[in-house]
């Protein structure tokens, strides 16, 4: 028994929230893993290649460990504690951080499957505002990433958080994002999953204070034999909360994508509004999408909606584009980019939005922009 097996939280039996995830395969990979090297040699240009250059200050971690030589100075208004055990990014009371910050997690294992466990805590004090982009990327090598980000937003604080996962093709990625929101706070979270052989991202949002708002957007684009699972839990623990979940999957080849969206509305709360949609596009006959809305409503004064679709590319639209001279592969890419545009277009900061659109198009759609 490898000691690492105990450090990563895998379910021991059948658990609903792990329903679609190949747990046995992950456990086997974990047993074959060793800790990823702490002093991996990673250059700035490699970070540029792997993570992309967003043009805003970067905070870089290699194999879960802060890499000061690869990181930029923090923009004013933020305090950074690099850890270990966890890195912390703190926004003081009523401070608005104008410049987005790009947190880059690089996996750089050796020849054996290397486990790294990046831990980040983002603390936004009352009235604070910040935009954080987290990118998970890696060298083409067998990584095992067990990632956790905790976001705490104080009274009337706000965060825009974009999480991009394009780790190497043979990586295994287990990610968890925990969000705790105080009264009148708001968050906009965008999760984009492109990379890894097996990827699971669980987002737990707890609306603890009244009138808190969360908008959760997600994209997953598995192809080949990739498996991408998204598990969302939104817990309306106070009154007057608003939550939206909008996840879109584009599944190609023999890949599989899943979305489980769990909404809990606690007893004794009033005026909560929870919306959930999950739309999937299957690009090949072997592609599979699983979707599971899961609503637990223990209050009467509540508004909850959910909708699910699984479909294929529209033949009429494909013919229309081809009849204008656009080759078939490019036409398909255009239609897919149209399908996911809603998610990308919702990203608040224009430079971040344009950069994410271009990166997704380049990495997942093979469409030039």
């Amino acid at each position, binding site marked *: 028994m490898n000691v690492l097996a105990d450090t990563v939280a895998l379910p021991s039996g059948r658990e609903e929230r792990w329903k679609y995830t190949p747990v046995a395969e992950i456990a086997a990979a974990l047993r074959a893993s060793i800790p990823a090297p702490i002093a991996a040699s990673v250059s700035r240009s490699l970070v540029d290649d792997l993570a992309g250059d967003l043009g805003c200050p970067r905070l870089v971690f290699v194999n879960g460990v802060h890499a000061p030589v690869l990181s930029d100075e923090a923009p004013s208004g933020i305090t950074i504690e690099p850890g270990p055990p966890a890195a912390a990014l703190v926004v003081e009371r009523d401070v608005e951080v104008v410049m987005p910050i790009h947190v880059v997690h690089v996996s750089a294992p050796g020849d054996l499957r290397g486990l790294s466990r990046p831990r980040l805590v983002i603390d936004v004090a009352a009235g604070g505002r910040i935009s954080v982009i987290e990118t998970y990327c890696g060298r083409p090598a067998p990584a095992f990433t067990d990632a956790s980000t905790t976001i705490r937003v104080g009274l009337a604080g706000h965060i825009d958080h974009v999480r991009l996962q394009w780790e190497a093709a043979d990586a295994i990625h287990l990610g968890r994002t925990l969000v705790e929101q105080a009264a009148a706070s708001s968050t906009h979270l965008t999760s984009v999953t492109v990379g890894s052989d097996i990827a699971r991202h669980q987002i737990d949002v707890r609306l603890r204070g009244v009138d808190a708002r969360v908008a959760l957007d997600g994209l997953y684009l598995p192809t080949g034999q990739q498996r991408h699972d998204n598990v969302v839990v939104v817990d309306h623990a106070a009154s007057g909360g608003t939550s939206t979940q909008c996840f879109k999957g584009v599944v190609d080849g023999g890949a599989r994508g899943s979305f489980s969206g769990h909404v809990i509305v606690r007893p004794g709360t009033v005026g909560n509004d929870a919306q959930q949609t999950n739309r999937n596009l299957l690009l090949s006959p072997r592609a599979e999408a699983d979707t599971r809305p899961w609503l637990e409503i223990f209050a009467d004064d509540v508004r909850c909606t959910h909708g699910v679709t699984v479909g294929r590319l529209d033949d009429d639209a494909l013919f*229309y584009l081809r009849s*204008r*001279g656009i080759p078939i592969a490019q036409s398909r890419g255009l*239609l897919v980019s149209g399908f996911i545009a809603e998610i990308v277009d919702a990203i608040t900061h224009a430079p971040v939005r344009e950069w994410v659109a271009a990166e997704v198009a380049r990495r997942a759609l093979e469409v030039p922009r």
Partner: protein
Amino acid sequence: MLRIEHLTVAVAGKAIINGLDLDIGTGEVHVIMGPNGAGKSTLANVLAGRDEYDVSGRVEFDGRDLLALTPEERAAAGIFLAFQHPIEIPGVGNMYFLRTAVNAVRAARGLDEISARDFLGLAKEHMARLEMDPAFLSRSVNDGFSGGEKKRNEILQMSLLEPRLAILDETDSGLDIDALRAVADGIERLRGPDRSFVIITHHRRLLDDIRPDRVHVLSGGRMVRSGDHALAIELEAEGYGPTLAAASA
């Protein structure tokens, strides 16, 4: 330019076009009229390369075997179909779509790409002539466009792609007077000695502006009568009844 010989088209075992012949010379404008279900739209779609049909017969376009080409190859060769029901594509910007199409066709024709900036100027120029608000460039393709706006967008695409043969499938249907005039003007501007048109229509109105070279009546999957502009006038006055009765007699 276009020679159709013994074209037969079926969908799911049901014959829609039955041994149709048609010859269209370079620079000619042909009109196809006929009752609903006659096979007019099917003919248009087959020529543009839609692949849900069982097709036999021969279609030659500028000396090439048209039926052997993919839709995008046909577009590059100079075929353009203005759709009866233009497709809405949410999330794909109209400007990006138009430029991608123009550059794809230019690349296939061995021409250089047009830059985004030059293309914007070109598109705005064409839109001004069609009395289209440039705001339509930043919207999604046909998404939420009115019927008339969609048809103008088709004519815009036609103008930008500069086809050799333009097939207009009921482009004049459901248009108000202003939109109809914009569409007619758009066609008239493109008319020239090197460009031919097939115009499928139910109405004489458009033809009064355009003055076609030939008018054909398609019924039961074949041409039952051909004539000049006077035929369109006669059909509008008398309906298809006498023509179809004579054809089946």
